[in-house]
């Protein structure tokens, strides 16, 4: 469980990035943190693995205050995948990159081998096992960064913009994998601008603006509220845009799912014919 209470944080250049943020995330939750550039999203999640410590207020991870723990101790439980993979990758081969943290955490050689194979397979990277991460495309490097964190199986996973540079198939795999993690009671917190990805997952959505939380609730409710989204520089998902325009026909507005949309429209058509 992650508990942040009235967290304030300023960067050395005096910009106050968090102005009193309180949020509780339970084990097994999937939370998407959204909002415009500079809203404080990345700053907030960096508090969840102790990379940043609050100037005022407290952050507790599984009951322990982050100011009293090292990043090394916290990261065994909280894995962080950065927005830009180049801030994270440094090894000569993809395999070494994924094995690095496992070695540091003191896993046995056979287990390391097993976990590397598992992670490579999961993220469609097996053919690049012996390749240098720097020869890979942007989207592939992003997956190497993700694989290297997933490999040690942290209880909580923090994904900063995980869908950047990913094609539709990789996004779908990521979505399936997150659903699977939820069945194992693992926590996933993602910072993302990708409204279509969030619409497909329908997680809990937290909207931030200027260092504060503006709204917190079910994805379907928040992503279909045009006024709220506009304040956060977010556009409606495409299906919600269609239903916003159809509302003059008396159709519901809070629709983000493709299949639900199809069913409603087919029924409306039946009714308009009879």
């Amino acid at each position, binding site marked *: 469980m992650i508990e942040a209470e009235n967290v304030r944080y300023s960067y050395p250049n005096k910009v106050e990035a968090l102005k009193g943020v309180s949020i509780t995330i339970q084990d097994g939750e999937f939370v998407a943190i959204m909002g415009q*550039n*500079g809203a404080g999203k990345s700053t907030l999640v960096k508090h969840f693995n102790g990379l940043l410590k609050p100037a005022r207020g407290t952050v507790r991870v599984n009951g322990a205050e982050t100011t009293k723990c090292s990043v090394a101790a916290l990261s065994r439980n909280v894995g962080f995948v950065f927005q830009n993979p180049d801030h994270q990758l440094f090894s000569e081969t993809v395999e070494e990159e994924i094995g690095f943290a496992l070695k540091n955490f003191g896993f046995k050689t056979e287990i390391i081998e097993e976990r590397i194979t598992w992670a490579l397979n999961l993220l469609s990277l097996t053919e690049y096992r012996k390749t240098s991460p720097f*020869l890979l495309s*942007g989207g592939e490097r992003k997956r190497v960064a993700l694989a290297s964190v997933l490999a040690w199986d942290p209880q909580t996973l923090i994904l900063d*913009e995980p869908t*950047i540079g990913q094609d*539709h198939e990789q996004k779908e795999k990521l979505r399936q994998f997150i659903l699977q993690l939820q069945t194992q009671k693992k926590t996933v917190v993602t910072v993302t601008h990708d409204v279509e990805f969030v619409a497909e997952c329908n997680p809990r959505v937290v909207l931030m603006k200027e260092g504060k939380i503006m709204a917190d609730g079910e994805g379907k409710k928040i992503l279909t509220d045009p006024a709220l989204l506009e304040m956060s520089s*977010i556009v409606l998902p495409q299906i919600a845009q269609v239903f916003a325009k159809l509302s003059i026909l008396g159709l519901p507005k809070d629709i983000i799912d493709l299949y639900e949309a*199809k069913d409603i429209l087919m029924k409306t*058509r039946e009714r308009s014919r009879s």
Partner: protein
Amino acid sequence: MVIIEIKNLTYTYPGASKPSIDDVSIKIEKGEFVLITGPSGCGKTTLCRTFNGLVPHFYQGELKGEISVSGIETLQHHTYEMAKHVGLVFQNPENQLFALSIEKDVAFGLENNGVPREEMRRKVDWALNQTGIYDIRERSPHEISGGQQQRVAIASVLAMQPEIIVLDEPTSFLDPLSAEKIFEVIYRLNKEQGITVVLVEHRLDLTAKYTDHLIVMDKGKVRFEGDPRQILSSEETRLMGVGIPKATLLFQMLKKNGFNLAEKTPLSSEELANQLLEALSPK
């Protein structure tokens, strides 16, 4: 008039075991808005790097085939010579900005080319106006938002008045509203100034509506090329893992279920909503 012509291009990065571009031939007409998409690692970024000669002059490696851009064979010319004709904008603007003020960043390319002061002033102001950042021109590029930074990167390229702008996922670090505004700036430059645009994108939900020429790549090859409405409604494209816009998908699902809609495949929510309103409104 053909402005980019690539013939039988095959290219392998140094140390790579297989080619990133595998026997690709394409023709792009002057004034087109071309969208290139395809699964991650399909060779789209590499292809863009050939347009101004970064591939192979900077990246080295092994290249076969012909590349002609604005009538110039890129293999026989330096990358800096190409800068007058082709401007490249990358994913992350931070990697591209370095000067102390936005204005200086935008003027950099012109200064380097020894453009006279008066002309430089005019071109820089024009580029700043086109991208809507004239009012913040004296600020540092490092204290502005990501959306504004990407506008600075586009302005820097525009100031050179290239005939072609190539943008490689230019908005992936931006919030959706800033992204939309950037796409609108690019679209306007294409329509009003006639600049040829080559845009690399995965997110067709945001961009399919702007294009008239879609190129779908996979494993280093061009798999589909042509009318986006036709390509995006084909089952094959969807199965390749291309992210079909939700409005296009919904349209197809409805048609499959016997919902009678117009022939024209929609590429945006507006187009689909209009068709649905037409079909569902009481007569």
